[in-house]
């Protein structure tokens, strides 16, 4: 009996948690059109399956502990019982087939809601690299295109088409609160349509094993009302803000003089490296290093000082800087709103 109680406990615990558990990155805390449909489907299937499981367990328990009369030899079989059993089993199989068929049809129709054929208001290119996300916005004119990293801003209530492109190895774009995942595969561009129903910050993470830092490859989708989004985009299109303070100015000098500029671009300066994330407005992003640290001057300094301890194996080298340079560069970057 303990077994059964244990089982029930688990089952109920499951259902409770399923309904309760939330999180910035949860398939059950949904704010996107697709994810909302998926959650309904998930809960429906889970509930039905739980019932099926419970029924099987009841059958098992009663089969084990029911009263029965003696029988003389193990090989002797009573045709009548055999017949009854056959009918029961056949019935059970038929029920199984029905449920299975229902699930198949259910998921077939749910699949159609995932299709990317629908019209869209905005197209964004998302490139997956070891181990960060490069985000490219297009505009009507070439002057309107701009790049950023690890942070996607989208207008609420609009269909946004993501063009997914794997640059080095396979990654997978997954923001569970908005939609199911889709792989970024080298040589095989994919598309995914996301639509946020409410404003908010939704965390996502690479879902396909992509090497040493697969665990630290997060991104954020920030859904905001259209005006706010427009304002953000306008700001992003501009070149880096000319550093106000003297310290920041020194930082800019150091940034351009040291190895930094070889890999990073800061629009409006001579820094035009392309192997690392575009830092033009890095200070305005919520996180650095693909969701590893919140963007503060301190975290910037910590990251630059020793990236290999914070994110072992990532492609950012430890650049030898003296305390002064470190301070000024972090000040400069933090100021790039």
């Amino acid at each position, binding site marked *: 009996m303990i*077994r059964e109680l*244990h*089982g029930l406990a688990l089952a109920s615990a499951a259902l409770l948690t*399923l309904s309760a*558990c939330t*999180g910035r*990155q*949860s*398939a*059950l805390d949904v704010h996107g059109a697709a*994810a909302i449909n998926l959650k309904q489907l*998930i809960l429906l*299937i889970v509930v039905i*399956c739980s019932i099926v*499981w419970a029924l*099987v*367990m009841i*059958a*098992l328990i*009663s*089969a084990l502990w*029911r009263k029965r009369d003696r*029988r003389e030899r*193990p*090989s002797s*079989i009573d045709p009548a019982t*055999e017949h009854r059993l*056959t009918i029961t*089993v056949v019935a*059970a*199989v038929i029920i199984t*087939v029905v449920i*299975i068929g229902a*699930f*198949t049809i259910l998921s*077939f129709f*749910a*699949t*159609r809601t*995932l299709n990317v054929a629908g019209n869209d208001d905005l197209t964004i290119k998302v490139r997956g690299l*070891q181990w960060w996300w490069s985000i490219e916005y297009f505009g009507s004119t070439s002057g309107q295109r701009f790049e950023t990293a690890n942070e996607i801003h989208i207008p609420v209530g609009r269909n946004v088409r993501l063009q997914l492109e794997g640059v080095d*190895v*396979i990654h*997978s774009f997954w923001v569970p609160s908005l939609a*199911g*995942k*889709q*792989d970024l*595969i*080298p*040589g*095989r561009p*994919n598309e995914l349509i996301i639509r946020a129903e409410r404003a908010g910050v939704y965390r996502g993470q690479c*879902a396909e*094993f992509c*090497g040493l830092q*697969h665990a*630290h490859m997060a991104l954020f989708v920030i859904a905001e009302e259209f005006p706010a989004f427009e304002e953000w985009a306008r700001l992003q299109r501009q070149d880096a803000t000319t550093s106000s303070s003297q310290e920041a100015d020194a930082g800019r000098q150091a940034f351009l003089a040291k190895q930094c500029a070889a890999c990073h671009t800061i629009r409006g300066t001579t820094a035009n490296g392309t192997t690392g994330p575009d830092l033009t407005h890095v200070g305005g992003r919520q996180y650095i290093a693909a969701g*590893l640290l919140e963007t503060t001057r301190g975290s910037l300094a910590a990251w630059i000082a020793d990236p290999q301890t914070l994110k072992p*194996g990532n492609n950012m080298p430890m650049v030898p800087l003296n305390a002064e340079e470190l301070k000024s560069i972090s000040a400069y970057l933090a100021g790039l709103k």
Partner: protein
Amino acid sequence: MNEDSTQRDLRDHDLDRPSLEAALEKTWKTPSGVWGVLTTVDHKIIGRRYIFTAFVFLALGGVLSILMRLQLAQPEARVLGPDRYNQIFTMHGANMMFLFAVPVMEAMAVYLVPLMVGTRNIAFPRLNAFSYWMFLAGGTLLWIAFALDMGPDVGWFAYVPLAGPQYAAGKRADIWAQMITFTEVSALAVAVEIVVTVFKQRTPGMSLDRIPLFVWSMLVTSFIIIIAMPAIMIASTCLILDRLVGTHFFNPAEVGDVLLWQHLFWFFGHPEVYIIFLPAVGMVSTMVATFARRPVFGYLALVMALIATGILAFGLWVHHMFVTGLPRLGESFFTASSMAIAVPAGIQIFCWLATLWDGRPVFKTPLLFVIGFMFTFVIGGLTGVMVASVPFDTQVHDTYFVVAHFHYVLIGGAVFPLLGAVYYWFPKMTGRMMSERLGKWAFWLIVIGFNLTFFPMHILGLQGMPRRVYTYQPDMPWFGLNMFVSLSAIILVAGFLVFFIDAIRSARTGPVAPDNPWDAPTLEWSTSSPPPSFNFVRIPVVSGPNPLWEQPDIMPVASGLRTDRRELLVTTLTKAIPQAREASPRNSIWPLWTAIATSVMLIWSIFTPWAVVWGSIPVAVALIGWFWPKGTPEDEA
């Protein structure tokens, strides 16, 4: 070697039982000492060896999982670095799939199938010895590499490009790929042996409808192996070629394709699950019948379910690729087929339930494990139905939900029955009983520990925790459950410890077992425990699917086999009518030499393609030595 004329053509009916047993022992025995160890072709010795080695790998893989749980118990833990962690989860997967799960199931078959079909040795006994040495070599290669920090770190699925020449530096990925070759060679060899043993060496009267269900399941499994494993051989060969000589199978820039790897891998990888699961089905069917004290209900239905599963197994591979952007319509087809496989699974469950319902269950440890199996496997099966649905899968694919799912299927669905089977057949294999008391302890610890460890992973997955992450950040809501999981794992480990202790202790000092301790119906219980080197003094003749129940006290036998040479009976495919008194090879050292030569060639070929050319020469020499007739009585025809 020349037998003197009196010995020549001595038949078993010319001798009284003691001298007959002596004569057979003289012909069939494995010499004691190292030489005997290295040359034996006795399926029982090799089977025991196989099982033991596989369980050693299980223990090693368990240690790895403990390390992973230590690392994941809390956010941003620094128990392991990403490099080591990636090696460890790759090793855990590869080890458990290729060095434990598949080999241990085949090992059980190597030991049991010949006994269950009432013959004296497995077909191609030397190939059998060879397959064990290859298995051992592959496992050793992998673990030594791991010890030297050269363990594969690309996942047991080794997706390209990550495992390709550009992103997997060094020889780590090649070692994975070559370890595959080792284990596949040994698996294929055993599969062939089992197919031929079941087809041609069944005892007289054992027509197709009288074959024990475990044997049926192993027959189907062997065919799955034969069809599925070439796929991974092709895939791993292409991978090594890409890495070593610069072919372009998986290079998009030269019109190769990244998804080609996934198709090849999963065309093998999904049937792999049934290669592991179907033997468990056979074990459960056997144990249910014995402990419910009645023949299993729906023999024909169960056989059909086995075959149906075996066929459907090849129509599901794409459900591992639902988020790679394949056409949705095609995906829906694979949803249907993946769902469909739940039907044969259902049939099996219902038949067992019916058997238990009508029977008189005897609650010995093996039956407990069968019950634990139903309790957990049904959950695994149902979550399987869930991930078979494309939309559902887009949310849970590559998350801990899937980790939970396949551990429910593989541990709940295959390892529980296996542990039950060990308790069930241990007396036959060792001649000693395992402890019922420790057995019950092991059962409760393992079943409870398992569910506490793996059930929460479903929730973690839905909460957005991806697989194969070496750590997670403190601001994610995963800490509590991960800690709980890690703690529960202790219970599970304790359970396995109890099991191992019981097994080792009983093997030495357990109470001596009678021939048929459970009053079971199948042939292996008609001979002594452990069986003599020749398995049966006289070849039994059967007239039903449960011979020892149908004729409890008297065993009909066939006589007329020679005792001066290793002789067994070949019968027809369907009706099992005797055809010939075929010879079975003697002990030989050549399988070992062949295995060594092959291993050298395979490992060498990680470094240069020329190894295939020069390395194959010693292999050829060893094979000639293997097959060259030695003028023993076995050569007579």
